[in-house]
C-alpha cells in the first residue's frame, strides 16, 4: 500500500478534494490565522496547504488536532480568539444554505418535532459574525442543500447595519462551483465552475437565485506544486485528525 502510493503520488489525477482545497486556499488569500472547526476535512486540507505554501505561515488551528493547534486555554480559546479579531478565516457548512448566506445547522420543519434534525449550530452563531473571512463549504450541491430560504437560521448571512458584525461570508465552495458573496447586496455570484460541471448544471442544482455573469471561468486545475504539497505534506498531517478521510482519499496515515 505504502509503496503503491509512493509510485503514483505525484502523477495521480487531480482528486475532487484536491481541487476544492486549492480553490479554498485561493479564496482565502494572505492571512495571519486560519481556524478550522469540527468535521471539515477539505477546509483543513486547504488551511494546511496554505501553510505548506507559506513555509509555516499562516498560523493554522485545527480544532480537533493536538499537533496543529496552539490553543492552551481550553475550548473557549477559539471563540475568544475570534472575538479578539485574531482569527481571519473560518469555515462553515450547513444542512441548508440559502441565497442570503443564511446557514441552517439545526433542522427542517417544526422546531419541537423536526422532520430532519441536524447536529446543531456549533459556533456558527458567533464566528459567522466576528471572523472577517468565512468560507461556506458544502460538497453536496443540490436543491436539497442550496435552498431559497433555510428552515432555521443558525446564523444569518448578514445583519442590520447597527448590529456589530465585522465578519461574514466571502464565498461558497461546492462540488460543482465557486460562488463569491457580496456582503453589501447579500447575494452570491457564480465565480467559476469546476471542470466536468457546467453553468447550466449549476443553475439546475441550485435552489436560490444568484448573479451569473455572461462568461464564467472554469475553476483552474491545481498546479503540480500544489498537488505535490497536498500529497506529500498535507495528507500525512491530515491523517491525525481525519484518519478515515485521509485513508480514503490519499491512502495516507498519520506519520
Amino acid at each position, binding site marked *: 500500500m505504502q509503496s503503491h502510493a509512493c509510485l503514483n503520488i505525484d502523477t495521480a489525477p487531480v482528486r475532487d478534494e484536491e481541487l476544492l482545497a486549492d480553490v479554498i486556499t485561493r479564496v482565502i488569500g494572505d492571512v495571519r490565522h486560519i481556524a478550522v472547526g*469540527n*468535521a471539515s476535512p477539505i477546509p483543513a486540507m486547504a488551511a494546511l496547504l496554505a501553510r505548506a505554501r507559506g513555509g509555516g505561515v499562516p498560523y493554522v488551528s485545527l480544532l*480537533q488536532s*493536538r499537533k496543529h493547534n496552539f*490553543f*492552551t*486555554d*481550553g*475550548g*473557549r*480559546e477559539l*471563540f*475568544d480568539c475570534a*472575538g479578539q479579531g485574531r482569527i481571519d478565516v473560518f469555515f462553515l457548512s450547513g444542512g441548508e444554505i440559502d441565497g442570503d448566506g443564511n446557514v441552517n*445547522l*439545526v*433542522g427542517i420543519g417544526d*422546531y*419541537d*418535532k*423536526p*422532520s*430532519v*434534525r*441536524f*447536529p*446543531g*449550530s*456549533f*459556533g*456558527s*452563531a*458567533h*464566528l*459567522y*459574525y*466576528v471572523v472577517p473571512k468565512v468560507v461556506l463549504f458544502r460538497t453536496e450541491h443540490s436543491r436539497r442543500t442550496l435552498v431559497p430560504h433555510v428552515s*432555521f*437560521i*443558525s*446564523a*444569518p448571512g*448578514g*445583519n*442590520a447595519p*447597527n*448590529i*456589530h458584525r465585522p465578519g461574514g461570508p466571502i464565498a461558497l465552495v461546492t462540488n460543482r462551483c465557486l460562488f463569491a458573496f457580496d456582503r453589501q447586496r447579500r447575494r452570491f455570484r457564480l465565480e467559476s465552475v469546476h471542470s466536468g460541471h457546467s453553468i447550466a448544471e449549476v443553475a439546475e442544482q441550485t435552489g436560490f437565485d444568484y448573479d451569473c455573469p455572461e462568461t464564467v471561468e472554469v475553476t483552474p486545475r491545481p498546479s503540480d506544486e500544489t498537488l505535490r504539497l497536498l500529497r506529500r505534506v498535507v495528507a500525512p498531517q491530515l491523517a491525525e485528525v*481525519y*484518519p*478515515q*478521510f485521509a485513508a480514503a482519499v490519499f491512502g495516507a496515515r498519520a506519520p
Partner: protein
Amino acid sequence: MPLIAPTIEDALAPIRDGIMLAAPREVAGVPMEATRALIRKGVRNLHLVTLPTSSLQADLLIGAGCVAVLETSAVSLGEFGPAPRFTAAAKSGGIRIKDATCPALHAAFQAAEKGVPFMPLRGIIGSDLLAHRPDWRVIDNPFGANDPIVVLPAIRPDVALIHAHMADRAGNVWIGRQRELATMAHASAKTVVTVEKIVDGNLLDDPMAAAGTLPGFYIEAVAVAENGCWPLGLPDHYGADLAHLGEYARLAATTEGFTRYLEKYVHARRAA
C-alpha cells in the same frame, strides 16, 4: 476533602434523577466508563448540558432514556455521521432541546464561575436560536449607542462529570490544556471525576504539574476508571477505538440495534 471513591458507582452518588449534569466536549476526555455506570444505575430526567458539544456520550445517555432536557451546541458522531439516538429523540420530541452556540455555553459557564448573573456575547442576533431561547435576552450595550447585544444567563449545573489522566490523594486533578474543565467545575455545585490513575505526592507541589491542575477543593469524588474514555480517546494518552465507533454508528441506527449495543457493551459489562 474529596472522596477517593473505591468504585465508580460510589463516586456517582451525587448524580441523581432530575439534576442538571454538565458534560465535557467530545475531545476533552469524556468519562465514558462513568457514563455506562450512570446508565446501569438507571438515572432519569437529566438536564444534560454539554460544554459545548458532545458525541457518543450524549447519544448514549439519550438513547438509554436518561435525558429529559438537552442543552447543547451540537451532538454528532463526527466522521461517523449524525448521532442516531439524538436525532431520533429530537425528531420524536422525546427530549426537549435547548439549542445553543458554542461560545454562548462557554460564556454562560464563565458567568457562573464569576458569580455574575449573566454574560454578554457578540453575534446571535438574527439567528433563530434567539426565538427558541426565551432565557436569552437582547439589551442595549450600556457603553454603545443603538448597539444591541445578547446577554446569556449563568449556567450553574448541579454536578459536572469529567475524566482526566490523573489525580492525587488530595483529589487534585490534572486536566492539562482542557481549561474548560476547570470552568465547568467552578461553575458547578459538585464535580465528580474519573481518572486513569491516582498518583503519589501532591500535584500542586510541582509548579509544572500545578499549572494544569484543578484543585481538589472543587472536587466531590474521584474514582479510578482505567481507559475510562473508551471507545473515545483521551488527548495525549490514547486514541479513539474507530472500529467500535463504526459498530456503534451501525447498531444505533435502529432502536433494536441500540438495545443490543446497550446489552452487549453497557449492561453486560460491569465497571472494571
